[in-house]
């Protein structure tokens, strides 16, 4: 995890505060980020049962403006941005011409001529270059990451904790919708989105106000059981919720259909980058498919471990580890479609030994609303 050479790690505006809170810091995609504060298990539990506050300012923002903005978004992404209402967000994929993932992202429609894309930190610059290279319609493309900090407040009590800080009524904001409003006097984009499987908000604002917002929310949240959470819990939470992570379930070799993300791939919306390859794939049939598994003994199938079907290697674990809330060891893996049915018994190669596992439906965890 530690690389000695290479460029210095990037830091968010909250770096010093994380250090002050005693966070264990790690290199994540070129950013020095908090892995954990009090511990992954307690942070995970806080988000499932109360609330957690995450600094996700490493995430990238790309803004697209102009009369042709929608055309460009529709060309480079696979979901149907055209159906978005102002104030609505959409999970989508940034496609290569082979119909594979250059990244996954959230598309926010700010106006008919203005879209904000939230992309993965490590892909930000490459995504921007790609979009610019595909921009045949003179839309304005801005790599806006440095203009934003982003906090995620997640968990069943997130709304309760956030509400006193904003005149915006949070309750009417529907899932995957957003509004502009002030939080603690700071102008924010407040989106009801998240990467944890819980209710919550992701707020985007000028980095200058990072300390103020972080400290206010942390203080106000304390009586509600809110604690600061790091990328460790973010990963166990999203895995439990069956969400894909770029570089694990999805990358430049995987398509939305293989990843179980056919629902974000709208082949009937008209041509887009990669759509021809995706049509071919649908016609030819999939050669592999993402599946969830749970371990049947106490061993842990981890990222990169082989998946064995009838004793033969049939795939690899893309993400695997403990599911702290479900108290099981779970994971996701690519397997041949013929062997991907729920209930199928497989084995995970755990350091040279075959450990029994069973394929289960995704997501592993779904909150009760």
């Amino acid at each position, binding site marked *: 995890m530690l690389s000695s050479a290479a460029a210095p790690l990037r830091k968010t505006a909250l770096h010093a505060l994380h250090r002050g809170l005693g966070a264990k810091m790690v290199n994540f995609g070129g950013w020095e980020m908090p*892995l954990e504060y009090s511990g*992954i*298990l307690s942070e995970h539990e806080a988000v499932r049962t109360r609330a957690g506050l995450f600094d996700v300012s490493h995430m990238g923002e790309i803004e697209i403006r102009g009369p042709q903005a929608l055309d460009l978004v529709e060309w480079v992404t696979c979901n149907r941005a055209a159906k978005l209402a102002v104030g609505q967000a959409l999970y989508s994929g940034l496609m290569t011409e082979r119909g594979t993932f250059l990244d996954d992202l959230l598309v926010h429609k700010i106006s008919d001529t203005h879209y904000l894309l939230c992309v993965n930190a490590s892909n930000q610059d490459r995504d921007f270059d790609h979009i610019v290279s595909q921009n045949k319609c003179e839309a304005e493309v801005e790599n806006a990451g440095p203009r934003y900090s982003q906090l995620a407040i997640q968990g069943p009590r997130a709304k309760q904790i956030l509400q006193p800080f904003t005149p915006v009524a949070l309750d009417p904001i529907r899932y995957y919708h957003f509004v502009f409003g002030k939080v603690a006097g700071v102008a924010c984009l407040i989106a009801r989105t998240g990467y944890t499987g819980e209710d919550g908000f992701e707020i985007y604002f000028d980095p200058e106000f990072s300390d103020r917002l972080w400290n206010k929310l942390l203080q106000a949240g304390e009586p509600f059981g809110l604690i600061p959470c790091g990328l460790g819990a973010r990963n166990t939470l999203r895995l439990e919720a069956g969400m894909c992570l770029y570089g694990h379930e999805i990358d430049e070799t995987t398509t939305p259909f293989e990843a179980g993300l056919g629902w974000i791939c709208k082949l009937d919306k008209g041509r887009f980058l990669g759509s021809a390859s995706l049509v071919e794939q649908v016609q030819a049939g999939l050669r592999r498919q993402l599946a969830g598994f749970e371990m049947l003994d106490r061993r842990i199938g981890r990222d990169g471990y082989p998946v064995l079907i009838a004793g033969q290697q049939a795939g690899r674990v893309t993400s695997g*580890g*403990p599911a702290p809330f479900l108290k099981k060891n779970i994971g996701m893996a690519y397997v041949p479609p013929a062997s991907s049915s729920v209930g199928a018994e497989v084995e995970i190669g755990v*350091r040279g030994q075959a450990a029994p596992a069973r394929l289960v439906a995704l997501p592993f965890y779904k909150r009760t609303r």
Partner: protein
Amino acid sequence: MYPSDYRYTKDHEWIKVEGSTGTVGITDYAQHELGDVVFVELPRVGAQLKSGESFGTVESVKAVSEIFTPVSGEITEINSALVDSPEKLNLDPHGSAWLVKIRLSDPQEVAHLMDTAAYQAYIAGQAKEHSA
């Protein structure tokens, strides 16, 4: 924090020798680096090990860490309570969360291990490397 009658390895195991038996565990530094421990795999009683050989694994949410025996000998006892309560390793790594007991085949090997002062200096150096 680090008991003065223990000896330590560069891989962050400790051993407490009483007569011809050593009790082995992982250090507080190791448990802190690992984070929440969720799984411990220990050898069978009777296993014969050479010093430096891997005899089990400790897994946290994020990582798998092999454990290496500081000395050669035969495993005489394992702390099976850890199998059901691996989190004890985060709470009491130098005490009740010991891993195995081993009958030393060559008590001279202990002399090659770090004493408490040397180990503390060693982890201070590691911490510095991390924050650099």
